[in-house]
């Protein structure tokens, strides 16, 4: 299940966190949303992002064991 959690704080700052994506698929899903919202000022990729990008574990969509 691919989900995006959006959190908007009282300063109007928006954070997005994707789950259930494989590697850079998360980027693709959120890129349009980010673009329409305004200027991106900060991005943090968690270590899992880089692990997933290599396809090195079992968290692939539809193929997990």
């Amino acid at each position: 299940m691919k989900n995006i959690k959006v959190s908007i704080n009282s300063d109007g700052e928006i954070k997005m966190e994707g789950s259930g994506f494989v590697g850079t698929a998360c980027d693709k899903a959120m890129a349009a949303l980010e673009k329409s919202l305004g200027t991106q000022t900060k991005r943090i990729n968690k270590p899992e992002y880089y692990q997933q990008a290599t396809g090195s574990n079992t968290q692939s969509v539809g193929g997990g064991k």
Partner: protein
Amino acid sequence: MSHVVSIKTELFDLNAAKAACAELGLIFKEGQKTIRWFGEWVNDYAADDAAYKLGISTDQYGKCDHAIEVPGSGYDIGLIHNPKTGGHKLYFDFYGSNGKKIQNAVGENGQKLLQYYGKHKVLIEAKKKGWLCSTTKAGNGNIEIQITNVA
């Protein structure tokens, strides 16, 4: 897996701005070219958040491309189109009881209006894509939107 991004919100979508105003009980006045304010620049405010330090020149004070009326206040919020970005900058006169009523409605610098604008912008964009949204208000004042059915 997950990753986190942070975006500084600007007002690019007037429909989202209108929806935010409606939720906050404010009146969006599309195409209104002036706002009510003190009425004269007397060079008495120069802090970092002064509008003229944020891209709105003092001779633009009182002018706008759209306005927002805050019920109960004698002053308004102005939206000025920024040709460099295509977005709209917000500004208002916060002085006195009229300004205080605006701050109470939208936050000290309009942050609350930006927050609700961001909410409605996300909802509009998600709907276009056929994504499903569930919105909640967290205890810390954050607005949380859980988007499911992401293709």
